[in-house]
C-alpha cells in the first residue's frame, strides 16, 4: 500500500536534514523501537514492537539509505521480518525551504507478506497510518529539541 504526505517544520532545512540523517536520531524517531544497531552511515538495524490492537508484532528491520542528495532528498529501503510477517518498504522524503522553515514531502510504499498480510489492507492501512503519525510526531519533537539552545 502507498502512503504519502506533507509536513511543515518551523526550523531551517539543514536542521531537519540533520535530524533525519542521523541514524541514532532516526532510530529514536521510530515508535516501539526496543533496540538498534548502527552498522555505518547508510545501514542500521532496529528491533521494533508494533502494536496491532490484538497483541503486538515484533520485527527486526534492516534499513539502508539507497539514495541521497544533501540536504534535499533521501530514499531508504527497509526489510523486516517477524513471526507471521515480512515487511518490505521503500520510503523517500524531499525537503524544501519555505521562508524560515521547511516543508517535507514524503512517500512510502509498504508491502506486508505472510499471515499478517492476509488480514488485508482494510485492517493494515489504519495501523500503517498510525505508525506514520507516530514517526512524524516524534520528528516534530526531535527537530524542536534540536533547535533549543543548549
Amino acid at each position, binding site marked *: 500500500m502507498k502512503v504519502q504526505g506533507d509536513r511543515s517544520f518551523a526550523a531551517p532545512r539543514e536542521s531537519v536534514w540533520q535530524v533525519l540523517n542521523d541514524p541514532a536520531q532516526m532510530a529514536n524517531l521510530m515508535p516501539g523501537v526496543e533496540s538498534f544497531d548502527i552498522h555505518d552511515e547508510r545501514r542500521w538495524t532496529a528491533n521494533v514492537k508494533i502494536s496491532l490492537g490484538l497483541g503486538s508484532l515484533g520485527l527486526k528491520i534492516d534499513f539502508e539509505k539507497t539514495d541521497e542528495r544533501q540536504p534535499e532528498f533521501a530514499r531508504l529501503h527497509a526489510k523486516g521480518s517477524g513471526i507471521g510477517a*515480512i515487511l518490505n518498504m521503500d520510503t523517500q522524503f524531499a525537503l524544501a525551504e519555505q521562508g524560515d522553515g521547511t516543508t517535507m514531502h514524503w512517500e512510502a510504499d509498504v*508491502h506486508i507478506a505472510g499471515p499478517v498480510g492476509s488480514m*488485508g489492507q482494510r485492517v493494515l492501512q489504519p495501523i500503517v497510518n498510525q505508525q506514520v503519525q507516530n514517526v512524524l510526531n516524534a520528528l516534530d519533537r526531535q527537530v524542536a529539541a534540536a533547535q533549543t539552545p543548549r
Partner: protein
Amino acid sequence: MSETTTAPERPVTVEADETKPGFIGVSVPRKEDKRLVQGEGVFVDDVKRHAMAYVHFARSPYAHAAITSIDVSKAMELEGVYGTLIGEEVAAQTDAFFQIAPPPGGHVRDYALAVGRVRHVGEPVVAVAAATRELARDAADLVEVEYEPLTPVVDMERAADPGMPVLHDEVGSNVIWNGQFDYGDFDAALAEADKVVKIDRLHFHRFSSTPLETSGALVEYNRGTGQWTIQSNNQFPGFAVIMMAPALRVGIDKLRFVSQDIGGGFGNKICTHVQLVALCLLARKLRRPVNWTEWRTDQHTANSHGNERVFLDVEVPVKADGTMLGFRARMIDDCGAYTRYEPLGCIIWAQVTPGAYRWRNVRVDFTQVCTNKSPCGPNRGYSRMQHLWFTERVIDIVAHELDLDPVEIRKRNYIRADEMPYETPNGCIYDSGDYARCLDEALKLVDYANIEERRRDAEARGKLFGVGIGSTLDSGTNNFGQSTLVNPELQFSGNNEVATVKLDIFGEIVVTIGTTPQGQGHETTAAQVVADMLGVTPDDVNVRAGHDSYWNSHAGFSGTYASQFAVTGLGAVKGATEMLVDQIKRIGAAVLGADSTDDVFLEGGFVKRKDNPEAALPFMACGAIVNANNAVLPMEARDITLNCRYVYVPPHQLPDKERKYGNLTLTYATQIHACVVEVDPETGEYEIIDYGAVDDCGVRINPQIVEGQVHGATAQALGAATHEVFTYDEEGNLLTPNFYDYHVPHALDMPPLKTGYIESPSPFTPLGAKGMGEGGGAGLSAVCSALQDALKARGGAIVWDSCNPPHRVWEMLQNPEQSRANVRVENM
C-alpha cells in the same frame, strides 16, 4: 422444516434385471452410522504409530518469489526435532510430476516442495518433523528462508498479456492450454437469428467446498520391501499412484493406500499426492512413521480451490420467440499456480456443452492460464458447474432482455424427454431426463402459482421480490478418453471400478470395493444391492469400510469422485455378486442333485431346489465346502471359489481427437432449483424466503442418501452464491484464508429448503441409477436469477457474477446502468 417429495410415475421402461425390488429404493439405515455417531470412526488423524513424527510445513509468505537460501540449522537445534526436507532434496530424489497438458503447458515442473521458486502464498517450502505437533510448529518457525520477491500475477484476465511475469519459465508464458471448439454452424445461426444478445463479460468466482476434515496422512516406510503404507484421506488413490510412483521412481505396488473414514472430500482431496510424496521421502529418510495433519488455513491457502472462469464477448443468436440458436464465447479459466489435475478442466466442461438446452451451434475459444494463487483441484461440480452457470445466465439474460417469461423460455429451449437419449452438438449422449417436468415440480415447491400474491405482500413491506430458476446437469462416470482431446499424446480412456464379493467359511458375505467414500454411504448402498441379489438382508452383508490397496479390489481409476459410485461402484458390486450367485447355484445344484443352476434359487440365505424347496443348503455349508471340505465336490465343480472379483468397465469409446467429438461421460442426472428472494433496497441485504430443489438421478438406490446429497450440495451452492469467495489482494495474499474470514453457511443461514424428485432411469447403467452429488450448482444460478428478477423493478441490473454478497446487490441497485452496459440486443 417440512419437505415434500413427489412420488414418481412408473418409469417408461425398465430393463429386465435380476434384482428383485427388495432393498433398491428403500431408505435402509446406514451401516456407517453406528460407529460415526459414537465417535468410533477412524479418520486419518485418529491413527497412531509408535515413535511417529509430526510434520509441519514452513510455507511461502510470498505469492511469487525466488528462493535465495534455506537454513534449517536453528530448527534442527531444537530438541525433539527429527529432521527436515527441502526442495533440493526432493529435486534430487524424485522426478517432476507427470503433466497432463501438451507442450508448452506440459513443461511445468511441479515437485513435492518448492524448488528454487515459490508461486503462491502458502506453498510448502520446507517440511519439518518433530516429536510433537507443537514442536513441529515451533521448528517450522525457526526455519530461515531468504526470498527475493517477484511481481505476482493475480489478475487472470491479464495473465496472458505480453510483459506479464511468467510463472513457469519452461512454459514461456502463463497460457497452459488453448483450444477451439466449433460445433454446428454458428455463422448460419447468426444469419437465421432475429436478434443477437451480446454479453461482454460474465464472471464465475473462486471458492471451494472446504471439507471439514483437512487433508492428512500417516506414512510408513518398510525398508526391507521398499513399500510405503500411506494412511490418508486422499479420495482418488488411482490417480494418486499414477502420479506418485513415477515421481518416486518406484513401481505402483510400492504404494499402499489405506483409508477408512474420510471427513468430506468434494474433490478437494484429489491432489494431495503432492504433499504425500514429501511425506514418503521423509518417512524413508527419518526411519520412522510421519504424520501430517493440514491446518485449516493451509487448506484454504494452498490446497485446492475451484476454478475461477470468465466468459467474454458472448454472442447468442435467438429467434424472436426466445428459441436460442447457439452461442459464441471466449472463455478464460484460472488454474492457479500449478497444474495438478489440470488442464482436464479445459475439456470436462464439454460434457455439458449445451447445458440443458437444444441449441446446436457452438463456438468456443477456451484458454487456461496460471496465476500466483492456490492451485485448483476438481472441486464439486468441476468445470461443468462453471459452464452450466454460464448457460443459465445466458438464458436468464435473454429472457430478461427480450421480456420473455422465464419459465416459458426454458421449456421452449429445454431438451425434451422424448428426445432422450439425446446427442449433443459435440457427441455426448444425455441418457435420460425430463427437465420440463423437474421445473414444474420445483415451481410447485415454491408455490409459483401464487407467487404474485407474495410479491405484492413483499412490496407492501418495502422489499423487492424476485423468483429465479437454476437448471443443472450432473454428468457422471467420466470417459477418461476426454483427456486425449486436451493432449492427443495421452494414453488414457474409459473408466473402471472393482468389487470383490465372497462367501466365507462360516457363510459370511464380505464385500470389498475400490472406492474411498467420504459420507456417500457406499457400505450401505452396496449392501442393498448385494442383499437383493442373494436373497438376504443388508444386515447380512458385511461391506469392509474404506479402502486398502492390499485388498486388490481396485483398478486404475478407483476412488470416489465425479458422481459415479452408483454406476461404477455399484456396477462392480452387481457384477461380482452375479458371479457369486452363479457359483452358489452351481454348488447347490451339485450338492442337492439338481440338473442345472436353472433348477435352484436363492432365498433367505439358502440355495433351494425349485421343485422341492425343503431341499436346501445354507450359505454356510457352501462356504465350508469350498474352503475346508472341497474333496466332496465333483471335479467339474472344483473351480468354484465363492470369491468373485469383478471389474466394471463402462461402454465408453475413444473420442474423435480431430473434431473434439465423442461421448465423454455415461450418465446425466438433473437438478432444477427454484429460489424466492426478498431484497432490502436500502442495503442490498437479501433473504432467501423459499427454496425448492428437484433431483432426477434415475433409479435411487437409497432415497434418503440421495436427498441428503441434494441438501448438502444446495447448501454449498447457496454459500458460494451469497458470500463464500477466495479473495486475493494485489500482492497475492489470500484474504479469506480460514473459517474466520471465509464464511460458510451455518444452521441459521439456511433458507427453508424443500426437495422433490422424479426418476428417469438410465438405459446405460447396470441398475438404471446415475451418479449424483455434484448437482447443487443449480443454486448458484437460481440465486443469480432471483436477484436479477428482484432488481428488475429498480433499473433492471444484470447479474454478471456468480457471487452476490449484499454489497454487490447494493452496487447493482445504486448503479444498474453499469451492469446493463455489459449487455446489448441487436436486431438482425
